[in-house]
């Protein structure tokens, strides 16, 4: 099964991922977004010359992400890889199919129920208030990423997992290496190996001295023979990376987007209505869609959709950033409008792999967006927008630094 079209044909195809326009750091790459007008499915060319389908529209992305004949198994031929991968090692369950994915996910899902997450809200509010106290007492300007956006979710996920926060430089640096698009396969494997060894050590500690944390629950599954120790450590790596990197980017990029839309920022600053704040979180998730590398799958059987046939073994990329800008679902999709009903967005993906930690992400962002701009009402950018280093090279989008003052 080959996925590569003959050379001359393949070379004219748009490259994926695309390049964002210089003056529009919040919008998807224009060449990719324009493909939506050509229909729901089109071919694109990846870094390795393969030519999977790009699914451009909201309805078809949802239909395919919930289709029983598509696979998330990264080891299957035809899977559209985002970067070179080194064989071997243990895979996390986001790269597996049911029933094994379902079995492993259920072991940790209980920690992220809406009710459990809601019970953590006062603790998250204390963390956010404490970090803002430090900001206000500290020097100006300050890098909001380092001083606030990264510490909030890192402190929260460390507490939940039972990982010592003192190690944050270590796990943040290795996470950053793993999710950069231009990291070599060797560097990625080495960073992954360091995190794996670190979590493996923690799982070992929890086996001997269980605490009241999620990693101890995972270790208990190892003791019960339901997980191997390698699977447990890999699960820890997944939860640790996903738990801080994504939310940190939403905090910093969201703040930058709001500073560029002062009328929208004023809505948040002046409102105490939890519904408005929750709605603002959904709209920022839709508008920014930081997981901008697409949801990737491979077809297990021939699938007919939108007048096309996707053949078994062909790769599929669901570009959820442009689905969330689909005018058929979101009128004036390129407008940031905190008062719109954006709850249907698929920034967390769709199908059985939809983000496991989404209730936690939502709650953290509600606390942050509902607090930061009220406590620092004169918050402003301390540099020009065109000097902000954006994560164009990241699997997850955001900013590397955000100098702010007040």
């Amino acid at each position, binding site marked *: 099964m080959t996925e590569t079209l003959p050379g001359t044909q393949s070379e004219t195809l748009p490259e994926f991922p695309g390049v964002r326009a210089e003056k529009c750091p919040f919008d998807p790459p224009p060449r990719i977004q324009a493909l939506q007008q050509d229909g729901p499915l089109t071919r694109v060319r990846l870094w390795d010359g393969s030519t999977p389908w790009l699914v451009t529209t909201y309805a078809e992305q949802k239909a395919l*992400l*919930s289709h029983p004949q598509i696979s998330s198994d990264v080891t299957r031929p035809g899977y559209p890889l985002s970067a070179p991968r080194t064989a071997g090692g243990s895979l996390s369950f986001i790269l597996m199919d049911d029933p094994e994915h*379902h079995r492993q*996910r*259920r*072991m940790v*899902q*209980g920690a*992220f*129920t*809406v*009710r*459990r997450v809601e019970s953590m809200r006062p603790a998250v509010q204390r963390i956010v208030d404490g970090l803002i106290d430090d900001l206000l007492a500290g020097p100006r300007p300050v890098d909001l990423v380092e001083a606030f956006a990264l510490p909030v979710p890192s402190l929260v996920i460390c507490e939940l997992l039972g990982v010592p926060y003192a190690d944050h430089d270590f796990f943040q640096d290795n996470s950053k290496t793993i999710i950069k698009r231009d990291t070599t396969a060797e560097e990625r494997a080495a960073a992954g190996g360091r995190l794996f060894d670190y979590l493996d050590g923690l799982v070992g500690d929890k086996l001997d001295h269980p605490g009241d944390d999620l990693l101890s629950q995972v270790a208990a599954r190892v003791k019960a023979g339901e997980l191997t120790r390698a699977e447990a450590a890999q699960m820890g790596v997944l939860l640790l990376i996903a738990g801080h990197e994504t939310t940190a980017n939403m905090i910093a990029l969201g703040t930058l987007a709001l500073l560029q839309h002062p009328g929208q920022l004023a809505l948040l600053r002046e409102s105490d209505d939890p519904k408005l704040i929750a709605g603002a979180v959904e709209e920022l998730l839709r508008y920014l869609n930081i997981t901008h590398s697409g949801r990737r799958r491979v077809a297990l059987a021939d699938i007919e959709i939108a007048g096309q046939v996707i053949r078994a073994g062909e790769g599929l990329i669901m570009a959820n950033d442009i689905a969330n800008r689909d005018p058929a679902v979101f009128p004036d999709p390129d407008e940031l409008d905190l008062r719109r009903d954006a*709850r*249907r967005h698929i920034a*967390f*993906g*769709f*199908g*059985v*792999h*939809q*983000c*496991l930690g*989404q*209730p936690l992400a*939502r709650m953290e962002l509600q606390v942050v967006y509902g607090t930061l701009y009220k406590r620092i009402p004169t918050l402003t950018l301390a540099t020009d927008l065109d000097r902000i280093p954006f994560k164009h090279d990241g699997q997850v989008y955001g900013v590397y630094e955000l100098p702010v003052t007040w």
Partner: protein
Amino acid sequence: MKVTVDEDKCCGAGNCVLLAPEVFDQREDDGIVLLLNAEPAGTEHARVREAAAVCPAGAIRIGEGA
């Protein structure tokens, strides 16, 4: 309106609980959906339909009538 849920399909993402907490909850140990009210009052119908539409696993079914 008659609501049914498929516990085997449910992936525990919790969207339904956020949208219609009077109708849906989650099991504490593994986050799987708990149906609190299979025949919700008319005031809940819009929220339940939205919950079914956003359920990533297609685990919520709505029968009309009755």
